């Protein structure tokens, strides 16, 4: 099926342009489509942003455009104070992968911002979306072999997530990432046992390494600077952990470091004090407002497009 008729497997020289199926250039590398990794990191970031934007679109659809922007500001502030995440400017002004996991875990805080602003049916549907996504994201990015039961659970949750999204919020289009999530991710997971192992995290880490040591690798030309980076990485490739004395401390048991009382200092609300300087706080608020403006603009455009399509009778 997919591996037999996928457009990526078709040979460019022997097929006509119409049969290329949106492949208009010669493939640089012909590969079995079953071995294309379902981009777990980018799916996580994209779907998280889409769900947050969906909340703004819900407000616009129920309360109008004027309420949308204040709500987006409130949402950014909720994420900053309750979930304690902020958009990363070096990452295109969106949340990084770890922040996406934190948002998925704190999805209830996002859902509470919709209370009283949208109908109960939409609120419940939105809350269910976050519950399903929380299950999916745990399996999607974990770099271990998952069990058979988890594979089955992932497949059912992915199908349910996309069908529920399309059924309750019909203006949401199925992006390629959502398509990969509910059509191909489960197949890849059941065949190779994990998605997170084959993820694209390592190449993102190489970007960060280059950013940190750009001064060290600088040379007369950019190509020489790149060569310095490649040489350094080739030299560091064989660095063995056996040369290091690592601490053998084991992680605590599950739930050992959870707050057990309402007055526990582990809870953010009980910590108090000035754990944050004024300047970083203002910077985080400013970046959060920028992010809120961007998702409001995009959500407003999406909803306007849907309305226009609806008016046209599409």
């Amino acid at each position, binding site marked *: 099926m997919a591996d037999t008729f996928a457009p990526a497997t078709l040979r460019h020289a022997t097929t006509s342009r119409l049969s290329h199926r949106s492949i208009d250039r010669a493939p640089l590398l012909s590969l079995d489509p079953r071995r294309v990794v379902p981009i777990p990191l980018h799916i996580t970031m994209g779907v998280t942003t889409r769900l947050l934007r969906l909340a703004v679109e819900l407000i616009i659809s129920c309360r109008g455009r004027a309420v949308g922007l204040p709500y987006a500001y409130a949402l950014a502030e909720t994420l900053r104070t309750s979930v304690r995440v902020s958009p990363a400017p070096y990452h295109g002004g969106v949340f990084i992968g770890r922040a996406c996991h934190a948002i998925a875990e704190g999805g209830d805080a996002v859902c509470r911002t919709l209370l009283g602003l949208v109908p109960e049916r939409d609120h419940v549907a939105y809350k269910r979306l976050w519950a399903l996504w929380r299950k999916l994201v745990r399996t999607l990015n974990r770099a271990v072999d998952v069990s058979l039961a988890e594979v089955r659970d992932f497949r059912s949750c992915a199908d349910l997530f996309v069908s529920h999204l399309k059924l309750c919020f019909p203006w949401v289009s199925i992006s390629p990432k959502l398509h990969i999530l509910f059509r*191909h991710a489960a197949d890849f997971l059941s*065949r190779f046992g994990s998605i997170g192992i084959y993820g694209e995290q390592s*190449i993102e880490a190489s970007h960060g390494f280059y950013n940190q040591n750009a001064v060290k690798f600088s040379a007369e030309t950019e190509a020489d600077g790149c060569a310095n980076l490649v040489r350094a990485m080739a030299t560091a490739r064989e660095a063995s952990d056996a040369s290091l004395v690592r601490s053998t401390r084991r992680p605590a048991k599950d739930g050992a470091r959870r707050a057990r009382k309402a007055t526990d200092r582990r809870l953010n609300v009980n910590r108090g004090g000035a754990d944050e300087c004024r300047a970083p706080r203002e910077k985080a608020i400013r970046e959060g407002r920028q992010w809120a403006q961007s998702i409001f603009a995009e959500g407003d455009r999406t909803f306007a497009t849907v309305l226009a399509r609806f008016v046209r009778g599409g």
Partner: protein
Amino acid sequence: MARERTSAGPACGRGATDFARDRCQSTYAVRMLTLLQSALLLFFLSCTLRSTCSLPDADIRRAFPKAVWAYRCTACSDVFLRPSNGLRAWKYRAFPELVEVLLACVRALPAIPCKSLRATEDFGIPHGTCDRCYCRSKRARLRKAPAETNVVDGPVPPSATPTLVAPILCEKFRGHSSAASGSAPVGGSSLASSVATTHVSAGPSLSHLAARVCTWTRERAEALNKADFERHCVVRLSEQLQAAQSAIASARAPPPHSPSCSKFLALLRSGAVWNDRDGPTLQQIAAAILLHDRPPEFRVKRANGRESVYVKRMSPLKARGKRSQRNRRSAIGSSLLAKVSRSQEDADVASNAQSVAMGAVASCRATVAQRRRSKAAQPLPLTPEQQLRLIETYGVSLTAFNGIRRVLGGSRAGLASQPVLRAARARLADLPAKRVTVTRTGAHLVNLNEAVAEKLTALSASNGLVERLIRGADLVPIPQTEAYSPPSVGSGSCPLAASSPPNEKDVHLALGLDKGGSPSSVKVVLVLEHKKHPHRLSNTILVAVYPAEKDSYDEASEMQKEHLQQVRDLVREGVVVNGERRAVRLFLSCDYEALCTFHGHKGESGTMSCLMCYTTKTACASHAD
């Protein structure tokens, strides 16, 4: 009455002086008799006490069913009771199973505090120093004069022992019976002390009486000695006769044989060898039996017939101890190793051998731990190449590393200098797996196949290779049993487009391409998925880096034509791991834009936006089904 009075008359008529003289003589005789009686009583009491003080240990031990409240003075070799509450309870307690005479004799022992009680012996009674011996020795020490009594164990020489046969000096009788221990047949010192006490209490008018008593006593002792001598002669003759008879019997009888074990056990149970002399020997016998046989259990039969079984039980150490416990065990092992090997050099050799046996990783950790424990600075076991790898991994400049090295003591710290590190870097750069070429568009590895093989070899050598098995339709991993055989060049098959069979041994490599960083550059990364943490930066192979603002198709095709052929060759030929060839199962792991670039796809704007199926872009109702 008158006659009586008449008869009494002449007596009375003899004069008051005669009467008074007669009366005085009768009183004197009575007093003399009384004194003699008391002296004899004291003499016999002293004899009795003397005899009880020399009771054998077995009898004394038998008189105390539980705790022994008696002790033997090591200075005077006499036995005394130890005053305590337990002794008081023992005195008022009835022991029907014991002989009354023995109990009476033991109870008649003097109760004298023990100054230094020694450990209780297994087959005797406790030893100690009685109060009087202790005080005497202490006074002797204070006077810095040789003590009259020998405090240490051992009998007193007979020449120093005052006997009744020798002339008795009253001044010498102030001591207690320890001075007369040894061969004295009777307790003359006790008698003398009692006489001296009587002399003191009677006053100077009775001194001549004491002298007479002494004379009488000496005569009595001579008589006793004479009788004793005769008796000893008879006993000696009878002993000689018995010896002659036994010699004749032994000459006729077969050679003597050692007593059987049952006889010895019977003797042991009867208490015949339970004394101070045989105690250590019995302990040696028991130790020899137990150490030689190493019986798994010990059976002890009690007097009431009950048998107790003691089983040796090994208490194993916990397999997984905590950190402090592990450190403690390691320290104990190291100390034992040093004791066994007798020298530090041997200990180092043995430690190294032990480390080699425990594996390379453990060896490095043990070496580091030993280096931490040792006070003297030892050179680091890392080669300059290894140090350089760590420097590059953690992004430390050579200048900073050299500064740290100088702070730590320069070459004594075992850290390589800058020229050495530069030479090591040059050596590494010449290796085929690490050679880098710079082209017009960017930099990339010269030999990708060598780089992958080097990484796999290192991974296999450190036992860090994690197998990734492909699952079948039933989600069960399929074991990889068949080796990979590369197709011929002219066969026309393309291993990239066609997956190798799942039961073929393979290596999973993920090829990634992404644009990012500052300054912006496109990076091509090859990730080996056979590690526990494959996304760690040191586990990846940076294949190429191109300075670019975007990863469009035209730029990417221009940049990647250098190394994509290497990727194709790698997939076709496979890699050799542990002497067997494995297929390379290549994955594409990058964002959607890079995937579209690889495939020459239009991207999200295309009608068929998915790279893996024929789905169309337009959302339809089937999505909600």
